[in-house]
């Protein structure tokens, strides 16, 4: 029996040198780090090829440094805001909300940040689609942003509906526009962010044949709206979900959420089975 024979170190070593990870923990170098508005910060890092090959919708687990008097213990999940194998860089757009992100905000250009990724299942684009709609809110806009570039690369048009409390808090608008996407910013202060208003926009896009699929992140209300429309019009869609994560590698089962699959409610791990899921399976 294999185990009775005892270990064979030479083979172990062979395995060792031949091993090729598909996600790597690396101390990456911060090459830019700026406040985008009063709430969000944008960080760009030089990283290895595996990390720079991250796809839209995937995420990294960041080992955040400790701000004074606090000690974030676990890594923090953060969506890929941009990744470029050509320049060997990865980008994050994040909001300072607690100990971990406060720690991130302390870092300066030239500092190192331990990033683990890319992780999870990202968005998928069907080459048959001509035009998709991305609807996001809050940090969800960071998650959706890299979709624009991927879609353009496949010749798919994008309309982005970006929702925020106030106009100055709308993030990633520039990134969408730079990739030729049409952008509609809806905000509380403008009174344009109500579900009814967004619904009118989405119906118009659908009617105009400009919505082959929904992509969404960051709002349970907007998710439900798109689920309703997707069912009504028989359209596909994808949603990127968030959940507290300890491992980010599908190990610990702390990040499960309920999903409706073929009439049954079951648990899936957001970090492993997602964070991008079929729009209609998500229970919002």
């Amino acid at each position, binding site marked *: 029996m294999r185990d009775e024979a005892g270990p064979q170190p030479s083979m172990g070593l062979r395995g060792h040198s031949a091993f090729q990870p598909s996600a790597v923990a690396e101390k990456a170098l911060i090459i830019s780090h700026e406040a985008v508005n009063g709430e969000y910060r944008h960080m760009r890092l030089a990283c290895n090829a595996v990390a720079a090959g991250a796809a839209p919708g995937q995420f990294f687990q960041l080992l955040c440094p400790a701000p004074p008097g606090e000690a974030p213990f676990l890594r923090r999940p953060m969506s890929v805001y941009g990744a470029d194998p050509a320049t060997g860089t990865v980008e994050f757009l994040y909001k300072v909300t607690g100990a971990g992100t406060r720690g991130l905000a302390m870092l300066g250009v030239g500092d190192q940040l331990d990033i683990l990724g890319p992780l999870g299942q990202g968005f998928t684009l069907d080459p048959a689609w001509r035009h998709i709609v991305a609807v996001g809110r809050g940090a969800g806009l960071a998650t959706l942003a890299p979709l624009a570039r991927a879609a353009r690369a496949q010749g798919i048009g994008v309309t982005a509906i970006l929702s925020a409390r106030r106009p100055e808090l709308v993030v990633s608008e520039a990134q969408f526009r730079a990739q030729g996407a049409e952008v509609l910013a809806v905000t509380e202060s403008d009174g344009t962010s109500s579900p009814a208003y967004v619904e009118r926009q989405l119906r118009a896009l659908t009617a105009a044949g400009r919505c082959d699929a929904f992509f969404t992140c960051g709002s349970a209300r907007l998710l439900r709206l798109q689920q309703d429309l997707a069912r009504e019009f028989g359209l596909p869609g994808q949603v990127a979900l968030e959940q507290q994560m300890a491992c980010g590698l599908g190990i610990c*089962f702390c990040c499960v959420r309920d999903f409706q699959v073929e009439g049954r409610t079951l648990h899936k791990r957001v970090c492993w089975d997602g964070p991008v899921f079929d729009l209609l399976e998500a229970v919002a």
Partner: protein
Amino acid sequence: MTDMTVRIGGLTLASPVMPASGTFAEGLARVMDLDRLGALVTKTITRELRDGNPLPRVAEVPGGMLNAIGIPSKGVPCFLRDSLPFYQRWRPPLVVSISAPTAEGFAALAAEISVPGVTAIEANISCPNIEEDGKAFAMQAGSAAAVMRRLRAATSLPLWAKLTPNTGDMAAVALACEDEGADALVVANTILAMSIDLQTFKPRLGNIMGGLSGPAVKPIVLRQVYQCARAVRIPVIGCGGISTALDAAEYMLAGATAVQVGTATFLQPEAMTQVIDGLAQFCAARGIGHVAELTGALKREDTHEADLAWAAPAP
């Protein structure tokens, strides 16, 4: 080069470092080379399908984390069909962690998974015993013995008993497991703990209480390994707060033959290989040819002398 092999009962492991149950799964193969491990240890499985506990399932505390994951389980057929063949692709022996609400349930499950490809069984007896009012089997020597006896009769595979640190009777439980035929002890599971959100006044775990793991537990579990290793002759596998080779060395000095790394993997997915490399260096730097020489090498002579040292900081 340091000889890194250790013997656990009848098995020889290529290295004394392996994952702790519940902190290891298929996903880790994406980030580290599983072939470097002493063994592969699965998440605890149960016969019945289970959902696990309400959310939130984890919380952070200084120097550690709480978890109340529960044991979400897809059942035995699913394990045999999907997980077993997956782990067969790596060389280290596979240790399957099992749990059941009754001693009889443990035995039946052990029999079911005593199949080729499974090298040893780790009995997670830190889980609630429904015959004892939900008290974990490993809380008392009597209930621990009862489950180990049934298990021993049900399988010829090596049997490891995973103890709970929540008992006041560590050594007695350890002895009971040895007496009933356990081939090794894993010391220990998580320490029952709790945390409250001061914004909401709610518990920070859906299950209210959960298990503490990570660096914070090390001094406590180290003491328990010491107590158990002195009480029994079978090997003790230390588990609790190990993140570095130095932590592992401390456990081995206290009496552990091997170690399991849990929470550290969440922070540093390559923690286990770092512990292996670091242990080899630790031994090499001290002229220790075989890592197993560390086991129980704690020096217990009178420590009064250390006192005098302070009088002459620059002798």
